[in-house]
C-alpha cells in the first residue's frame, strides 16, 4: 500500500514523464518506434498509482518481503531490458553503417575509374 501523499507526488512525476516523451516526439528528437517501451512503462506506473494494492500484491507474488526492495527489483529489471534493447538497436545500426561505408567506397572507386 502506497501512502497517499507519495501517490500524488508519483502521479505528478508520471505526468511530467509523459509530457517529456510527447515533447521529444513533437520535436522529432525521438523515434516513435523506440518510445513504445517508455510509454508501456509509463502506463504500468500509472496502473500502480491508480490501484495502490496492485504493486504490493505483485511484489508478494514474486516472493519479495519488502515493498521497496520489490519496487527496485522491478525497476532494475525494466532498465536492463531497456538497455539490452538499446544495445541491439546499436548493433543493427552498426551493421547498416558498415554496409553503407563499404558501398560508398565502392561507388567512389567506380566513379574515379569512369573519370579516368
Amino acid at each position, binding site marked *: 500500500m502506497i501512502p497517499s501523499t507519495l501517490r500524488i507526488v508519483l502521479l505528478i512525476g508520471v505526468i511530467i514523464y509523459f509530457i517529456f516523451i510527447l515533447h521529444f516526439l513533437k520535436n522529432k528528437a525521438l523515434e516513435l518506434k523506440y518510445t513504445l517501451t517508455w510509454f508501456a512503462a509509463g502506463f504500468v506506473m500509472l496502473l500502480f498509482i491508480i490501484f495502490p494494492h496492485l504493486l504490493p500484491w505483485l511484489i508478494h507474488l514474486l516472493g519479495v518481503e519488502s515493498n521497496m526492495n520489490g519496487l527496485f527489483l522491478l525497476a532494475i529489471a525494466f532498465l536492463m531490458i531497456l538497455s539490452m534493447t538499446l544495445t541491439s538497436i546499436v548493433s543493427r545500426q552498426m551493421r547498416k553503417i*558498415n554496409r553503407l561505408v*563499404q558501398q560508398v567506397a*565502392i561507388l567512389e*572507386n567506380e566513379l574515379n575509374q569512369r573519370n579516368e
Partner: protein
Amino acid sequence: MNKILLIIPAYNEAQNIERVIGNIIENYPQYDYVIVNDGSTDGTYEICKHCGYNVLNLPVNLGIGGAVQAGYLYAKRNHYDIAVQIDGDGQHDVAYVKDVIEPIIRGQADVVVGSRFVKKEGFQTSSGRRMGITILSILINILTGKRIHDVTSGFRAANQRFIDVYSEDYPRDYPEPEALVIAMVYGGTVREVPVIMRKRQAGTSSINLKRSIYYMIKVSIAIFIRRLSYGVRREKGGNKK
C-alpha cells in the same frame, strides 16, 4: 583463365603501401589488386591516389573485418573467381599467392589459409602469441572437427562461393579465426598451405599484448556462437529449398 583479385586492407600503411603495390604491379601483373584504405590518418589514401592505385576509400574506419569485407564486396561486384587477402604491411609474400590459390583452382578447397606453421619456416611470431593461436586452433578443432594450425593468418584465399558468403557475412573485429568457422559451417572445405612470412617492415601490428586477453575471450565466444547458430542456419536453408 581465372580472374584473381588481391585484397589489400591498409590502415595507416603510408610507409609500406608503395613498396607492396609497386611489387605487385611490376612482378605479378597476372593478378588484379584492390587496396582498401580503412580511414587511414597518415596519408595512405593520398599516396594511393597520387600513384594511381586502385583503391577503395572507406570514409570512416571500420576495422580490419569491415575493410576486408569491402574487398569481398568489390570482388563480388566485379565477378572475380578467386579473392586473396594480403596484408598491406609487406608481411605476406605475393610469390606465395600461386600456392594459396592452387587448391581452389583444382577444386580441392573453398577457402585456403597460408600458414606459417605447416613447415615452420620464416617469421614464427612470439611464443605467447603462438600459444594463443594453438588454443584457438584446438578450440576450432573441437567445435568443427577440422584442424587448422595458423588460424590467425590473414593470408587466405576464397573461391567465388565464399566471396559471396563473406561479402554478406564477415566478422567485424579480429575476424580471422571466426571467418574460418563461418567457412566450415557454410559447408566449405578449408585447406592450409605452407607459406613463409616476413616480420613486418614498418609500423606496428594491430594486436598488442595488452589486447590479447580481450582478443582470446572475444574470439572464443565468437566462434562458439558461430557453432551454436549452425543448426539454426541449416534449418532455415533447408526450408528455403
